[in-house]
């Protein structure tokens, strides 16, 4: 067990625990955008910053990636921390002026848009948190999407923006996206995502359309469960 302090509170946690989890399990909230429980962490958004004091040195670290340390003193909302968080939110507000998620978060933390930043009009709602890429790679296992370019031109998409041959239309990326940037349109028989239209399969029992055919084929291939057994939706199984 490691002993340390968060916001004046003495806390114990298992070695290897991240500051974010240690704080949350002690009722201390830290805002996050890119740390999703189903995927590995990247430290991209920088919203979860806290100040970590070790001896005389105090530095800003991302709580979602910083493992707890014996004797360390963490402050989650002092002025230095808030200065970074405010900047991050103002930058994201200017990048994604349409995103209600960012607007709500900013309101919650009392952050106003910075009038000196001209809002972008071409970035949609994507904050480049990379949760979608990671879920596609780490959970689904197909790596159909990724980033192109670098810097501010970085953008999420399929390789070369072409229709992806490997995408199975599962929609995990759209579900995990914190801001709702990824467009997915599901009607009864079809699902449109990343420029492709997938045929939906209806349940052999209740007849409800429940998953894209390509996804079921992929699951069957990966798990060895025959297609026939996958033809029934979870409700009817």
């Amino acid at each position, binding site marked *: 067990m490691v002993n340390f302090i968060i916001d004046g509170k003495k806390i114990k946690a298992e070695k290897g625990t991240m500051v974010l989890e240690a704080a949350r399990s002690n009722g201390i909230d830290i805002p996050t955008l890119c740390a999703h429980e189903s995927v590995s962490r*990247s*430290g*991209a*958004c*920088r*919203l979860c*910053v806290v100040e970590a004091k070790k001896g005389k040195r105090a530095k*800003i*670290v*991302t709580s979602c*990636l*910083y*493992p707890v340390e014996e004797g360390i003193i963490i402050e989650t909302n002092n002025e*230095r921390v808030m*200065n*970074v968080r*405010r*900047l*991050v939110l103002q*930058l*994201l507000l*200017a*990048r994604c002026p349409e995103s209600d998620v960012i607007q709500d978060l900013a309101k919650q933390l009392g952050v106003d848009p910075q009038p*000196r*930043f*001209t809002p972008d009009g071409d970035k949609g709602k994507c*904050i*480049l948190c990379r949760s979608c890429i990671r879920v596609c790679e780490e959970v689904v296992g197909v790596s159909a999407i990724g*980033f192109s*370019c*670098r*810097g*501010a*031109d*970085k953008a999420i998409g399929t390789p070369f923006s072409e229709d992806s041959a490997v995408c199975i239309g599962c929609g995990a990326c759209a579900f995990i996206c914190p801001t709702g940037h990824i467009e997915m349109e599901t009607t009864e028989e079809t699902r449109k995502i990343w420029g492709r239209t997938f045929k939906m399969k209806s349940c052999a029992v209740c007849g409800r359309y429940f998953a894209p055919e390509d996804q079921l084929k992929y699951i069957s291939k990966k798990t060895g469960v025959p297609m026939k057994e996958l033809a029934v939706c979870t409700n009817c199984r």
Partner: protein
Amino acid sequence: MKKISTLDDLKSAGDKGMKSLFPRGVKIVVGMATSGIASGADKVYEALQSAIKKRKLPFTLTKTGSMGMDFIEPLVEVIEKDKPRVAYGKMTADKVPQLIGQIVKGAIDKIKPIYRVDEEDIIAKREKKHYLTGIVPEYLQDIPTMYEVPFYKKQVKIATRNCGIIDPESIEEYIARGGYLSLHKALTAMSAEGIIEDVIKSGLRGRGGGGFPTGTKWQSCRRAHGDIKYVICNGDEGDPGAYMDRSVMEGDPHSVIEGMIIGAYAVGAQEGYIYVRNEYPLAVANLTKAIADARSSCLLGKNILGTSFNFDIKISKGAGAFVCGESTALMASLEGKAGEPRAKYIHTVEHGLWDRPTNLNNVETWANVPVIISRGGKWFSEIGVPHSTGTKVFSLVGKINNIGLVEVPMGIPLKDIVYDIGGGIPGGKKFKAVQTGGPSGGCIPATMMNLSVDFDALWEAGSMMGSGGMIVMDEKTCMVDLARYFIEFLVSESCGKCTPCREGVRRMNDILHDICAGKGKVGDVEMLEAMAIGIKDGSLCALGGSAPNPVLSTIKYFRAEYDAHIKQKRCPAAVCRALIKYEISAKKCTGCTVCAKKCPSACISGVKKKAHKIDQTKCIKCGICMESCKFNAITVK
């Protein structure tokens, strides 16, 4: 190549090298580093080759790396038995027959040497070796020795000890100058801990930018758990205008290789990588040859120098992004992933390349190692100043007379570099500032000329050592425009992973653009300062972490220039186009019409022999008129 496994083997290889470094007959050496070739050294080389052939002269002709004197390249040196080594600058193919004639005659005619070298300091061997025996021949007596030339006088060459002297393709010449003797000492007479102790004692700090104590890094890597460990040489060198590492890799590849083998032995690594910028083909070629030669001499591979130590090196060509020089991005790139940094809360000495303990150092850091081992950590620690020991290589560029590569002891006053070594500012202009530390470093104003050039003093002044770029600026540089220039570079090089750097630096850039365009607002400077704190604190890697430096340091030292742009809509250095005006003085104008003819926008009107006038509404502010006026009648404000 002959196998080298004992000290005697090294000695006999060294003897061979000595014979080519101090030849019996006449040897002509051409500086053929990238900087030399860029100024035409290859043509000079070819001309020399055919002249020697045509006249059937018994001369040998070889290549070497860069001596650092870019401002007088192509450089050709002539070595004759018992005479000083003599250097000729600004050589051209046309001058070759003349030069050959002079050598044959043993006299100086039209082509004057720039310096002579009577004896050579072989720093890795603590030895002097003489070219000259007896007295200086009369025709060379007026020529200064290399150590008297202002450019060299205050230099101390450790990392670049062999650059411009040896043939980088000759392992024997490297050995002749003490090469691989340190490796022999390390493997046969020192323990891994002993080596690390000596490197700690030397006080050597990383030359790649961070200035982290090298010995301490090695120690952590040695202590890290794992059977498989790696060492890496960072030769990415992405700072625009910097070429220290290129010079070492091109001119003395074995020094890097020897340093790496010693480091690998100390930390317990079996494999090494040299990550070289793709734009450095000559460095790649020379390193490749050097690795192959070291391997066939049994200095790399299995049972190095007859011991049980095995180690080998691979070269990997970089993807060409500035950020790939950052250690974690470099490792990701080596693994074949996107070159993006990751959080370093888990240290790379424990979990680095392929999650194994990895020790990464910069080219120049590695090149220092063999000398530290041969002369001892204590000797090295006595060069420089207490917390910045040894020397540092700088590439001196910008508005300076002697553009080139210099290696100076740490702690040298900045003015010595600018005035003594650099020869001051060209065109009689006033010296304004020096940018150190690359694009994300900071500027040091002329008023701080006495500043000691060391890690800590530069840091306190709001700049940093960085990897050794030094850009000199004169009074014609606008400091706001300069900050904008560096920030723009960083915007284009941000990898885009984290919000503060990706979004924040470009917003700073927007504001700087506004200020330069006369659209700055009162409060912009304070806004830039506040953003800078958030970006520095919040960014994932040191690119974002240091990106605001050029803005902060120019605000710190040249605040008045920002205010002039914002409040008076005036650019004091007359650089920012939106804020300047070209005018013709009616008094001085002779009506010669030259400017009117040259103006690309055809906005100068006037009758011959009468004063001319510029139509301000059409002027594109290119300044061509001012350059063309012979009577100094045109001014810019």
